[in-house]
Structures are given as C-alpha cells and as structure tokens.
C-alpha cells in the first residue's frame, strides 16, 4: 500500500528566509499525526505545501500514491480532491447556508446532482451533530458550530487525507471540546489526519505519531505516547514543559 503522503527533502523559503529546511515525512493511510512546535517553526507552511496553497522551491510531495504537488492548475485540482483542509478561522462562505457550503464543491467539482448532494450534506451535518442547521447562515452559528460545518464541508469531497491547522485556536474554551470530539470520531473511523495543534492532551490521546517541528525541520518524531513520556531532545523536552 503506498503511503498517504510522502514528502522528500522539502524546502521552502519566503524571499531569503528559509522556513522549511528539508522535510522528509511519510504518512501511512489511517495514521493520525499531531504536529507540534513553537510559533514560526513552519507547521502551517508544511500543511499548506501539501495541498498546494503554498509553492515550494525544492523537494517532492506525493499524495495518495500518485498525486504530485505541482503548480499546474489541473494537477492541483486533482490533488485537492484527495486532500481536505480545515482552517483556524473556519472560512465558511458567509453568503451560503451551512447546507450549501457543504454542497458547493461536490456539485461543481464532482458534478453531483442536487438531490444527491443535499442528501450527502444532511448526512454529514448529522455526523458532526448539526442535523438541524442545514438552512442556517454561518453568522447564525457559534464558532464551534461553524468549525463543525467546515469539517463536514471538507468531508463532502471524500478526501483521503484531512489537514487541520489549529482548528480550535480561534474558539472560546467551552467550544473546543465539541470540535475535538468530531475530529476524534474521524480518527476512530480511520481517516488519515495531519493536524497542527496546541491541545497537548488531545494530541496525546488521539494521535499515533507526534512530530515536533523546530526551526524548519522535523526535530523529533515517533509514537505519541513514547515522545510525550520520554522525549529525547532537549528542545522537545523544553517544549513540553519538562525543564531539566
């Protein structure tokens, strides 16, 4: 079975500031990976390279066996059907109802008929616990609800991989749980997840593997439980708050 994502020697700079300094990473299907690291260590940039939101200078990313990340629009469009992304700021389309937010891409990209797409949207909203919100406009929803609609929207494209970039960071603390529960259920269902998170307890409980990024490199990585209990590098130890 080919890996879900295979990244080789990935380098990315903004101007002359090198942000990713040679990343090698293979993600197996069904793996749940938590990416942690200090602000500015390149976590978001890495995720954004994987679905082509950011171009990179050198290296190679292969997704789902055969989709290479490159700048050709058609290739990108194909790639993005395999990779879903959820953002910190939800980014729901404010002029569309929750249901239509979910239906838009399947209708346009997958050419799904209106009934099928609506049926799917209803099912997905039920899955994220928002069965009665099909006709709600985004501004009528709480942050946690909006983020759950965003998850449903990404799932509607039936991606092989889901990228999550600090998806609870913009939420009030009491709304974090409802979103994390949805993500956890996806993990249990076998979705390949790559998530940048500051929720350490959640990362420890849900992820199989932890990746610690430091200054544009994968500084340490391994089974989550192992790394959380006995981090090898000083930097990760410091990051986890285990001084000495």
């Amino acid at each position, binding site marked *: 079975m080919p890996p879900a994502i295979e990244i080789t020697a990935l380098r990315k700079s903004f101007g002359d500031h090198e942000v990713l300094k040679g990343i090698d990473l293979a993600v197996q299907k069904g793996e749940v990976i938590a990416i942690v690291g200090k602000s500015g260590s390149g976590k978001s940039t890495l995720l954004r390279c994987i679905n082509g939101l950011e171009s990179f200078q050198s290296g190679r990313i292969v997704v789902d066996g055969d989709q290479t990340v490159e700048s050709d629009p058609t290739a990108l469009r194909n790639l*993005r059907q395999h990779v879903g992304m959820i*953002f910190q700021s939800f980014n729901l*389309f404010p002029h569309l109802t929750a249901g239509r937010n979910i239906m838009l891409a399947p209708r346009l990209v997958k050419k799904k008929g209106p009934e099928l797409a609506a049926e799917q949207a209803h099912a997905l909203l039920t899955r994220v616990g928002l069965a009665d919100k099909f006709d709600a406009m985004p501004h009528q929803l709480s942050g946690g609800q909006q983020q759950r609609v965003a998850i449903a929207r990404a799932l509607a494209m039936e991606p092989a991989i889901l990228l999550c970039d600090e998806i609870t960071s913009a939420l009030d603390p009491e709304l974090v749980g409802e979103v994390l529960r949805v993500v956890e259920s996806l993990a249990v269902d076998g979705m390949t997840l790559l998530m940048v998170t500051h929720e350490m307890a959640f990362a420890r409980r849900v992820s199989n593997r932890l990746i610690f990024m430091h200054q544009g490199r994968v500084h340490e990585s391994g089974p989550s439980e192992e790394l959380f209990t006995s981090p090898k590098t000083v930097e990760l130890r410091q990051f986890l708050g285990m001084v000495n």
Partner: protein
Amino acid sequence: MIDFTVWDIVRNLLDAAQWTIALSIVAFLGGGTVGFALLIGRLVGGRSGAALIGGYVQLFQGTPLLMQLFLAYFGLAMFGIDTSAWLAAALALTLYTSAFLTEIWRGCIAAVPRGQWEAAQSLALSFSEQLRYVILPQAIEVATPPTVGFLVQVIKGTALASVIGFIELTKAGTMITNATYQPFLVYGFVALFYFAMCFPLSVCARILERKLHAARH
C-alpha cells in the same frame, strides 16, 4: 427672436435629456463590461498585467474627462475613422467609466478575506469557480453602493460631451438660451433635470450602503 413658451423649453430639454440618459447607459454598460474585463485581467494577468491595467487606470483618473473627450473626438478622426460626436463621446465616457469601475471593483474583491480564496481552492474549485461562486457574490454586495454612486458621476460627466457638439441636455440648454436669451430660466431647468436623474440614484446608493452596514453588524 422666436417665441418660446416655458413648455417649449421644457419639451426641448426633455428631448435632449433622452440623449443624456442614452449616453449614460452606453457609458455605464460599456464601461462596466470593459471594467469587468480589466478586473479579470488584473486577477489573472500576473505582475505585468496588473501594472499595465494600473497604468490605464492612472491615466484616466489623472487627466480631465474633457481632455479625454477631445482626444477621442480628434483622435478618431486622425485615424481616418468617421467620427460623430456621439461615437466619440460614447467611446471616451466608456473608457473613463471602465477605469473608475475597475478600480472600485478591485477594492471590493480585495476586501474579501484571503481565507475565502484559500477555502475555495482547498475544495478543488477552479479559478473561475472560486471567483463566480465564492468571491464575486461577496464582492458584489460591497460593490453595489459605490457603483451606483459612480453612476451619478457618469451622468454629470455626460454634460462635458456638449463641448464636442453632442446635443444632450447641457448642449440643448445652451442652444435654447441662445434663442431665448433667458439663461437663468433655461439652465435652471437643465439643472433640475440633472437633479431629477441623479438624486434618486444617490438615495438608492445610500439605502444600499445602509443595508450593507446593517447586514454586517
């Protein structure tokens, strides 16, 4: 001196006002179409395309409309195109309008948060789908009040077409004044007619603006 009743004056001005309206509509539709094409050009044309169109905008915003009319009128003739005042006025006003509208609309598109583009991209929408289903619906809402507001500028701008001999409201006013020697009365009516065309649009723009603010808060 021919005897002009007030009704004669009004009737003649009404006739001419139709040309003001016609020229405004042509300028607005033509300018809107060209302006939209320029907008797309700016979005997809890369750095050089954006610079080129930016220059076009600066050119039309940085010169008097009167000069643009003169240049269109005499310029077309120079290229051996048989110009009527109507054609020259329509051309100049179309270009003028396109420059302003494309700039207004560019600002409205820029006002849509980047995250909206990125969300649409990550859902595998093509560029035109991103624009049509995600960005434009949001931008149009913001763009409507200033666009309607600019239509007022276009209507008032058509008055300048009188200097190249196009017979619209202002030119008709001048001609009637020359025949009646009642400038205050005639230009009073002329002003009134412009006001009757522009005021409802201004009100409309203000209502739209207020609605937009209400929707945002």
